[in-house]
Structure formats: C-alpha cells, structure tokens
C-alpha cells in the first residue's frame, strides 16, 4: 500500500497581520507578548490567525489585525468571505508572554490576552485551548485541516492544543 504525505502550504502571519487558511494551510508565526488568535470552522477546515500586538485600537480602523478589539471582527468578516459559518466557530490562543523577564511594559502580554478574551466573548466564540503567559517567545503553527495548534518554546515542541 502506498502512503502519501500531504504537503501543507506554510502561510506566515506577520506582526499585526490577519491571514486566512484553508485545509492545506499551516498558519505560522512567532510570538512574544503578542497573542496568536486563531478562529476556525472545523467542519469546513478554514481558519483565520491574527497576530495581535496591542489591546485597544483607540479608534484606529486601518490596521485591524494589530489590535484585539478590531482583529476579532475583521477575522470573522474574512472567514465569512470564504464560507465560514459563525455558529461553528471556535478559538485557540497562544502567546501573551512577559518578555524581557518582566522588565519594560510587562503587563502588555496580559492586557492583550484579556482584550482578546473580551472580544471573543462579545462574539460568543468559545475558546477551545490556550497556551499563554510565561517569559519566553513561542513559535506556533495551526493546521487548518485538523485544528491542531502546535507550540514550540526555545526550539522545542512543548504543547499541542
């Protein structure tokens, strides 16, 4: 019997960006105190990942992915455009670290996480899994077909949510 490995297409999500992926996509990014928010429709195998930098847009509408309060509505709009059904949406979160060992703007990570949670709750999207906090960066990848969110810290795989 021959087995076939299906090559997934890596889609990198830059700082403050929102990217949508379909079944053959692997959404990837690197996070520090930013939060990698994924909203996905498991049945249709589509997902959107936002790389959220800050909690509040303070009225700015031109870079929705950068802020928690504007990222979630923009993600929903993008998912709808590719056939997502809002009643099926679930979310997974990673990131929100306190980088520089708590020096500098240390509560940015926590603020981001809280703002993302509020935005998801406002849209009644349940959170299926989280890997948050700590003092280290994360490399994350979300497989749109399986809904698996894999997290590496310091070059080692540490979690799959």
């Amino acid at each position, binding site marked *: 019997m021959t087995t076939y490995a299906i090559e997934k297409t890596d889609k990198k999500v830059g700082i*403050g960006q929102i990217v949508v992926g379909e079944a053959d996509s692997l959404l990837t990014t690197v996070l*520090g105190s930013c939060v990698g928010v994924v909203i996905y429709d498991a049945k249709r195998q589509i997902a959107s990942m936002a790389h959220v*930098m*800050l909690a509040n847009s303070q009225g700015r509408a031109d870079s929705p992915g*950068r802020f928690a309060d504007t990222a979630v509505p923009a993600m929903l709009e993008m998912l709808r455009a590719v056939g997502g059904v809002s009643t099926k949406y679930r979310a997974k979160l990673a990131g929100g670290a306190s980088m520089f060992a708590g020096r500098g703007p240390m509560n940015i990570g926590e603020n981001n996480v809280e703002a993302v949670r509020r935005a998801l709750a406002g849209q009644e999207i349940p959170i299926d899994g989280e890997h948050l906090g700590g003092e280290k*960066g994360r490399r994350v990848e979300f497989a749109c077909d399986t809904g698996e969110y894999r997290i590496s810290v310091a070059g080692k795989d540490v979690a799959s949510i």
Partner: protein
Amino acid sequence: MSDTPTSRSEQLALLQELFASATRDASEAMNRWTNGMVTLTLDEVRELPLEEVCGELNLSNELMTMIVLTLDGEMGGDMILSFDEKNGRALAASLLGREVCTDPEWNELEQSALNETGNILGCAYMNALTRLVEVELVPSPPHFIQDYGASVLQQALMAQAMYCDKALVCQTHFHRAGEEMDWSVFFVPNEKMRQTMEETLQGVS
C-alpha cells in the same frame, strides 16, 4: 509621518549620519574592549512596514542570543544586540581568556561578558543620542536573553505600533579581522524619541 517623500528621505539621510557617527564611537569602544578584535559599521537606517520588519531583518524562527538594553521614560526605546551562538561564545571566551565553553547552557561568566559588551555598545550609542537630543539618556542594565529574534523585536516594536505603520530601525553589522559576523545591533526608538530626533534634525537641516 505625513512628510513629503523628499523631506522624509532627507530626514532619513540625517539619521543615517547621526547613527554613522554613533557607530564610529561604538566601534572604537568595541575595538578597545576586544583588544582590536571586533569593529562595527552602520548598515543602514531604514523605515520598514511593521508587518514586514521581522522578515526583512531575517528575524523569524531562529533562536538567537541577545542582549537587550531599554531606555525607560517618556523618551525611550530599546537596543537589541544579537549574536549567533558560535561567535557569541567565541567572543565571551576571548574576553574571559578561556577556552570556548561547550555546555549547552551559557554560564554566568559568559553571560556577564556579553552583558558588558552590550553595555559598552549601548552607552556609546546613548552618548551620541544624548548629544543630539540634549537630554541625558541612561539605559537599563543589560539583559541576557536566548529566544526567537522575532519575539524579542516585536516587544521593542510595540512602542511604535500604536502611532506608526512603519518602524524606524537602525541596523549595524560587526566585523572580526575584516570578516563580517552574524551579529547585529537594532535600535528601535519609541514615538517620543523618534519625534524628538526628527525635530532636532529638521532644525539641523
């Protein structure tokens, strides 16, 4: 950020001059610190879209060894000195007069040697900036980090994320015995620092 392209490019050219001078000071300090082993040259001062900074600077999935100095206060910023593992350890060993350590973990002495290197570079840059903006700038003690380059840089970029769509990044390269090393210094000013630098430079021009 609403300047005409011409005045913006003139400002960037002036910033380039400023950082070139700061880099010369830093290079002299580094040259003394490493007994002539290491020198620096300014690569360039660039404005990059926030979304593309990590990709443009080749800071993505790789783990890096970094020294971070933070300028706290209204007029602030972050300076990140990044080393590749092999040459960072060679520098630490050379400064300590020891064999290159082969343990996976950096020991306290090695970290201390690199922290001091960061301190020397940071102070040289801060002195140049102090001369420009005429405000005394005192960086935090250096902080040793091993992590993904992108995760550290994005922390520094947050100070710009609310107000700007482009990040101002000053990138410097290192040379040892004339050979370019895979080390860099990134300086990311916050909004107030950036504004003050630009206003001062407008006065100069």
